[in-house]
């Protein structure tokens, strides 16, 4: 836990420096007759962010000398959380190229059948009904077109039918 605390605070400190570097593209000081410049707010807040993260780091450093270390992740957790994270990542990547519906079908099938170990019947029902619901709710009712990538032409007949 202390090691995780230290690592996270180091990342946050790095992030704060990155924010500062970005913020100083605009004036960060006092602009006469105009008050604080456009970069001042993000810059000085990032400075406070840096020192707060430093505080976390220092207290973790002090605590790690005194108390026993509790592991941050349990091995089981890491594997299931990593798997789901990768699945989400791949799904979003597929959304833009192969289209939302292909992504949804693959994601739901993987999640329910392979990750969740559900019966084929339940998997099939949810995997097929969800995209249909999504289509009617978002595209037909709300008129929000979801990305379809290369599968776009397949939807032309549906567009003709509903729009």
């Amino acid at each position, binding site marked *: 836990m202390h090691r995780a605390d230290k690592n996270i605070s180091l990342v946050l400190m790095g992030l704060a420096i990155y924010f500062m570097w970005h913020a100083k593209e605009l004036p960060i000081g006092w602009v006469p007759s105009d008050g*604080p*410049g456009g970069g001042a707010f993000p810059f000085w807040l990032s400075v406070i962010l840096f020192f707060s993260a430093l505080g976390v780091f220092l207290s973790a450093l002090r605590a790690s000398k005194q108390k026993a270390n509790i592991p941050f992740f349990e091995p089981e957790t890491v594997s299931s959380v990593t798997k789901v994270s990768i699945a*989400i990542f791949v799904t979003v990547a597929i959304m833009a190229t192969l289209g939302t519906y292909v992504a949804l079908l693959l994601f739901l099938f993987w999640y329910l059948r392979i990750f969740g170990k559900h019966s084929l019947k339940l998997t099939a029902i949810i995997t097929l009904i969800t995209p249909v619901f999504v289509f009617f709710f978002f595209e037909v009712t*709300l008129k929000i077109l979801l990305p379809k990538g290369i599968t776009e032409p397949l939807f032309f007949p549906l567009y003709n039918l509903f729009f």
Partner: protein
Amino acid sequence: METLGLLLDGFSTSLSLFNIMIVVAGVTAGLFIGAMPGLGSVNGVAIVLPLTFLVPPESAIILLAAIYYGAMYGGAVSSILLGIPGASTAVATTFDGRPMAQQGKAGLALITSAVASFVGGTVSVILFTVFAVPLADVALAFGPAEEFALVLLAFTTFVGLGNDNVYKTMVMIMLGLVLSTVGLDLISGQPRLIFFDLPGFYSGISFLVLAIGVYGVGEVLYTIETSNKNTEVTNARITFAELGAGLRELVKLWKTMTLGSLIGFFVGMLPAAGATPASLMAYGMAKSSSKKPESFGKGNIEGVAAPETANNAASTGSLLPMLTLGIPGSPTTALLLGGMVIWGLVPGPMLFIEQPDFVWGLISSLYTANFASVIINIALIPLFVWALRMPTTVLCALVLVLCIIGGFAPSQKMHDVWLIVAFGGAGYILRKADYPLAPLVLAIVLGPLMEKSFRQTLIAEQGNIFAFFERPLSGTFMCLALLFFLLPLIKYARQSRLKHTPITSS
């Protein structure tokens, strides 16, 4: 008297057939969201917000408020039947609710929680109605200096009163505020913090993207981790005889419930406090004022009634500063505020003058939502028992789909979907490392207001930084903010003195 007239006008809005349907739909959805372990009102509102574009703005807000309300009722269901709080706000309900269920009194416990929630909700909605107009009148005198001071005060309450590590709380506030400045500078219009030159950052980072990320995707990742354990759903059957017995039992608890409602309402108004500490406080009060404190934790009905009145009262309490001052009292109300801004309804005192129909429609809808919640809650108990048996993997898969599609819908940019994924991962890790999420969400919602009011004041006062202290109202807020900010230091000093005293005396 004037308030009563306005409220009656409000009912003419909220009692239209369409709005009653909206309330019933929202409350039912909220009840289920709240009942699911892991999902609470804030997750529900974050995930459902993008879907509310379906209805006109006024009804959308009523829908979200109804979900918020229903989720508060629903949280108790899984506390009692599973022994896992449906949301953090229902933690205190597990203390006596779970033992009652194990003794075969699950039905009575559920009725108690529903009726207690109703009492808490009703008392607090009445208090809300009474306080709304005077508070909005005070807020009319606010200029940018007061606005800035009040936002600062809201953040310092997290530092002074929050139970989390002070440094970690500060990190989250600053992170939220910096992320809120991404995009175009409010005053000069120049682009700033355009990370990696991605055009998507020009329009800023929407609070909704952050909220769906941390409360949707992040929450699912967190649930995957904690749901490995097997749980057992206790069956509950409700008979009319039990309902009658429960009501008779509850009449005797009027003192506990009144106290719980009052604690809930006032504690709920504070940004750092909210429903969870309010319900724990009410539980503690009920226990210490009871004649049989030893029976608490072993299935005492009072131990269910007290926290449930308080957490519902707190949810209404946190709406009060959001609607009248434009400063939300909880992450859920922060999301409601963000939603209202999207629809062009800016909360604050001017809303009471410019849009009285909407404001009073919303307030009166709280009465109907309360009424609908208690009835639907009791009627749907068998359905909850069934729904709680639903495997978490099915729930998680559907929530993730909603997060991804719902995250795309408002802006229709893949950029936002990627951000949601990134925030989900980061939010999960930060939450696991005990960083509080509430200040982060509050900060990204309030950040633009904070910066605007700060810079407006300084421009108007020709850079006189003491302007914030010179006006009486903003001066008071600033001093209070300073006090809250220094509170951890004072606590620390006292603790170390206590630690040192015995050593020097021996």
